[in-house]
């Protein structure tokens, strides 16, 4: 039977500002990002400066919602935590259910092994390398549609006109949700993930929950061939999934697929626009695009993941106690100088093993789809536009919390 966890503290952290007694004073450091914060600097440069401090530190106020947590910046420690499900749990790492007084959980994201893999196995075939390879034509067609709309204009706002909607479009189609509701979903997504007001998060969460519950109910008798249909038909222990399980899975798919690809795509296009030599190289060597995507995923990881320690342990001599929270910011781990020498250098031949898609049993379900979308988006931009650059004088503002997201990316090119 699934249990929800502690409703008292929805923040995936100990109470904001609270430092447990066992945390050595010299390991306490501020984390530079918080909900609602923005910067005009390069966000990953800000993160990389944390390399000057201790390998493991304790932030009094950490993403996603400001609770205090250990922060890990060594790729090796991050992989260790991701694999160590005996000491680190994924339970209650997201606030959505609690914020709406629900007792469902995000599935499989908040489920620990061994139960985790029974749910994960329902979804793996939908997102496998084989399944995603079959989507190429669809993804290419979608990318071309977006670029066609602005290619003759000589300028675009890349986030608004391509990266924000493109992955969502593809994803809604896979889920079997109506494309006409794209704008509505984007609005809910903003409320879920980007606003700093608790009320907005609650309202958006409730709206998404109501919507998904209605979709699930409407399709029960005739599930269909899309992702939701697949989940409705799935069985665990010889029984169909119950309402909470269906909602938990659909909600995870919903938030997992929305802004993660769009933000990483925007971060990559920003890099290519700001580094014409790299852009020119890839234009001349299209077969290197997949490797370039991996290296840029390494250097520009955009998400942060939480875990809660459930059993006392030690990492690199630091005592982590049950009840402590751990934050793994991909953007920081990807700048680990020990794992990735000169981490600020983007080297397309580096072929790094990064943790921007996570690691271990919860490793990003959508990663094969994400990679394909980013690769095809870049190929399409190269195919349909000449060398593009950031519009002269434009200042790129990035939101910096658990997610790193450029708010807009004005590009120009010759026509």
């Amino acid at each position, binding site marked *: 039977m699934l249990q929800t966890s502690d409703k008292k503290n929805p923040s995936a952290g100990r109470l904001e500002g609270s430092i447990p007694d066992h945390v050595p004073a010299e390991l306490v450091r501020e984390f530079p990002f918080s909900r609602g914060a923005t910067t005009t600097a390069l966000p990953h440069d800000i993160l990389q400066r944390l390399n000057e401090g201790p390998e493991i530190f304790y932030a009094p106020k950490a993403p996603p919602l400001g609770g205090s947590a250990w922060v890990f910046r060594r790729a090796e420690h991050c992989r260790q935590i991701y694999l160590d499900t005996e000491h680190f749990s994924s339970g209650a790492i997201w606030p959505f259910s609690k914020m709406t007084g629900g007792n469902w959980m995000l599935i499989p994201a908040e489920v620990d092994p061994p139960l985790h893999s029974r749910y994960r196995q329902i979804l*793996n075939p939908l997102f496998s*390398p084989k399944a995603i*390879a079959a989507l190429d034509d669809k993804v290419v067609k979608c990318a071309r549609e977006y670029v066609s709309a602005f290619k003759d204009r000589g300028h675009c706002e890349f986030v608004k006109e391509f990266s924000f909607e493109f992955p969502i479009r593809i994803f809604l189609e896979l889920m079997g949700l109506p494309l006409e509701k794209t704008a509505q979903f984007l609005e809910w997504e903003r409320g879920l993930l980007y606003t700093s007001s608790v009320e907005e998060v609650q309202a958006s969460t409730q709206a998404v929950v109501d919507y998904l519950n209605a979709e699930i109910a409407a399709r029960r008798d005739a599930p269909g061939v899309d992702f939701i249909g697949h989940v409705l038909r799935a069985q665990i222990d010889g029984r169909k999934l119950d309402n909470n399980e269906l909602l938990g899975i659909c909600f995870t798919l919903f938030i997992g697929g929305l802004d993660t690809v769009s933000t990483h795509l925007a971060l990559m296009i920003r890099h290519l626009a700001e580094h014409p030599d790299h852009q020119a190289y890839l234009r001349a060597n299209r077969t290197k695009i997949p490797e370039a995507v991996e290296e840029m995923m390494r250097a520009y990881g955009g998400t942060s993941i939480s875990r809660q320690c459930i059993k006392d342990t030690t990492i690199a001599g630091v005592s982590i106690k049950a009840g402590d929270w751990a934050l793994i910011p991909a953007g920081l781990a990807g700048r680990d100088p020990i794992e990735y020498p000169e981490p600020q250098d983007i080297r397309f031949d580096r072929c790094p093993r990064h943790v921007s898609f996570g690691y271990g049993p919860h*490793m990003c379900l959508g*990663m094969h789809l994400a990679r394909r979308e980013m690769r095809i988006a870049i190929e399409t931009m190269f195919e349909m536009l000449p060398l593009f650059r950031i519009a002269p004088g434009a200042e790129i503002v990035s939101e910096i919390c658990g997610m790193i997201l450029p708010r807009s990316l004005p590009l120009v090119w010759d026509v």
Partner: protein
Amino acid sequence: MPKVTFVQHDGASRTIDIPVGMSVMQGAFRNTINGIIGGCGGSCVCATCHVFVEPAWADRLPPVQGTESDMLECTAVEKRDNSRLSCQLHVTDALDGLVVHIPERQE
């Protein structure tokens, strides 16, 4: 220490030592063998450590179970009778001399 040979799609081959107990995938990773990704680190969720075991060895391996079987349906290159996920193959002394072929793609 047991030796395992990896044969690339283009025919190039490399033989490495892998300690008893380590997975073939981990051994490949530590020795920078190309063509095996194993992104999830051996958790059997990513299907990117696919190998074809040379037929002479296929029967000497522990049988495919549950999750590995499901994930073999998910590989980029269609699975064959001698397909395995190398993260689930743990080296023993009896496997000294194992030969695996790396498929053309993992994604």
